């Protein structure tokens, strides 16, 4: 396999908790991201799912250099970018761009659409010569499905879906190779969500993009992703191709998440098993010993409190080559089907 375009190893972000006004003393830390590994291949979409507060957004912000990791590496085409600054950082930024969650706060209300998208060219003047910028911005508006004549309008004159298209156009302006989309549709109406998702899928083909797609909506992630990583409390607990995760989950947390997905078919709904987790997500300042999911897991035994399960193919599936043989950080991993399988199999084409 070719070298991955992006590789993350042991990524950690701890926010210090301090006490005192003048003499600050560290009294602990919020372990927002606590050792995350994944890779992204060229042209593929990696979905990252997990509930609120599990560290998804922090990972996204570290990937686009809005936060500096406490430890770990982010390798872009083999080069660690976490310690870059100045010119080198600016060059990497051209290639990794972000689409934000809330289209209502991610566009400057006092800039015209033309300025918002065209700002990329002011910052990176080498990308487009001055005379051509306006034409490029209009082309981008066209590409994301907006009227190029809207270039002089202000964000408040657009609907949520249109605003998110503007945000996507801004992300595309520098012709990046990777787009980190942090819950790009969760602030939108369901009907508009589909449009934006389809737009992202079309742009991926058109511009040869690789996506990191972060969401808490499992069905949307399944729709767009090639591979999926499930995060819990700052770590990835299970990762694999989308069919492996959705149809053959082996980690109890993934199974619980999937059992909460609404099933449109009332017949199938009758037969399925809901896994209700007890308790709340533990505080990221006091992460449980051993397996971090053990406090809410119905399978937890003594070993779970002592040993941290590694993210690897579980022993019992190691010799098989079936879909259950994917990375899962559980000592007692077992396959369990919780959602009725989609007839169409692979992602994308569903029932017409």
């Amino acid at each position, binding site marked *: 396999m070719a070298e991955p375009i992006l590789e993350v190893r042991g990524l950690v972000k701890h926010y210090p908790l301090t006490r005192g006004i003048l003499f600050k003393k560290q009294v602990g830390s919020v372990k927002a991201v606590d050792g995350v590994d994944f890779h992204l291949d060229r042209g593929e979409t990696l979905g990252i799912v997990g509930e609120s507060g599990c560290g998804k957004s922090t990972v996204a912000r570290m990937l*686009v*250099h*809005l936060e500096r990791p406490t430890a770990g590496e982010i390798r872009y085409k083999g080069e660690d970018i976490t310690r870059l600054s100045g010119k080198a*950082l*600016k060059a990497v*930024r*051209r290639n990794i761009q*972000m689409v*934000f969650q*809330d289209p209502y706060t*991610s566009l*400057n*209300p*006092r*800039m*015209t659409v*033309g300025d*918002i998208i065209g700002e*990329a060219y*002011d*910052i*990176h003047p080498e990308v487009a010569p001055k005379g051509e910028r*306006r034409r490029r911005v*209009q082309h981008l508006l066209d*590409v994301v*499905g907006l*009227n190029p*004549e*809207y*270039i*002089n*309008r*202000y964000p*408040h*004159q*657009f*609907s949520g879906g*249109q605003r998110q298209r503007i*945000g996507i156009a*801004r992300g595309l302006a520098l*012709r990046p190779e990777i787009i980190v989309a942090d819950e790009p549709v969760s602030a939108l109406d369901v*009907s*508009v*969500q*589909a*449009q934006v*998702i*389809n*737009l992202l899928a079309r742009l991926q083909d*058109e*511009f*040869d993009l690789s996506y990191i797609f972060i969401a808490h909506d499992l*069905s949307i992630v399944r*729709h767009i992703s090639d591979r999926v990583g499930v995060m819990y409390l700052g770590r990835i607990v299970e990762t694999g191709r989308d069919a492996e995760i959705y149809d053959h989950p082996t980690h109890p947390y993934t199974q619980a998440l999937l059992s909460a997905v609404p099933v*449109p078919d009332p017949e199938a709904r009758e037969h399925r098993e809901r896994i209700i987790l007890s308790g709340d997500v533990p505080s990221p300042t006091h992460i449980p010993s051993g397996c971090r999911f053990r406090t809410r897991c119905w399978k937890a035994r003594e070993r779970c409190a002592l040993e941290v399960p590694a993210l690897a193919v579980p022993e019992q599936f190691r010799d098989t080559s079936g879909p259950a043989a994917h990375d899962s950080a559980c000592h007692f991993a077992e396959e369990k089907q919780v959602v009725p399988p989609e007839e169409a199999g692979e*992602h*994308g*084409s*569903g029932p*017409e």
Partner: protein
Amino acid sequence: MPEQPPYEPERAIAGTGMGGQMDLAASEATTLEQPPPGGPGESGHEASAASGERPRSLWSDAWHDLRRNPVFIIAGLVILFLVLISVWPSLIASGNPLKCDLSRAQEGSRPGHPFGFDGQGCDVYTRTVYGARTSVLVGVLATLGVAVLGSVLGGLAGFFGGVPDSILSRITDVFFAIPVVLGGLVLLSVITSNTVWPVIGFIVLLGWPQISRIARGSVITVKQNDYVQAARALGASSSRLLLRHIAPNAVAPVIVVATIALGTYIALEATLSFLGVGLKPPSVSWGIDISAAAPYIRNAPHALLWPSGALAITVLAFIMLGDAVRDALDPKLR
């Protein structure tokens, strides 16, 4: 990188495979492309005209707006007039503000003396015209000084945070604790120069923490917005973030407070003059006249009303100006 392929008009891609909700979405997709009512729709001619030619920006749009705003035009004319008579008071007042005749003290309106005479028998009209220079100078320069110093320091502290921010915040606390009048008595009593500069300096010294605090809070609110993060992710420098993204969005409260403060500064100059630490009598200012006439309000109200009326109109003009500018800088109100 490949050249951008031509855009294909099909937008809503069929076959979402995500259940009923999503199928509904595909059918709605085309209708949702339309701009929301009341938004872009109302300016169709503008859009077609604007498509290729003049790139617009916040400032050009704001200026375009202001030129059509009657409030701005009236306020601007009043301020222009004030500036004009501050520079050339003899244009409309031929008398000498220091030539007084005690025998005419507190007399009312006479031909050639439309505003009457004050307690010292000086012509109120001439003094009001000549007083504009001091009052406008104090008001405008003190406000500018306070606004620039306060918003630069407060803005930088709010943007960068950390230790400098803590230090600045404690310094503003110290200045807030100084009573203005007492501070004026102490600081200005040692200065013998009878010009407006020590007064302006004193007002700036005591006034900047107020603006600084407001600017700091406003910048902290604005800098957390995603659009600032988005610009940072594009690689924008700190100065670009501050000037292009934060300042235009954080400036509104500063404008409001500064224009209101302008009136208080003119009044503060009057207070200090009244206490004998501001300007001293051969100087002419509205503040001096107002405080001199205040005790005789029952005998000679005109001596008080004309200079205070001029002060009120000046303050109002600046507040209206600030209001108009603030509104013009908010595209949502357009």
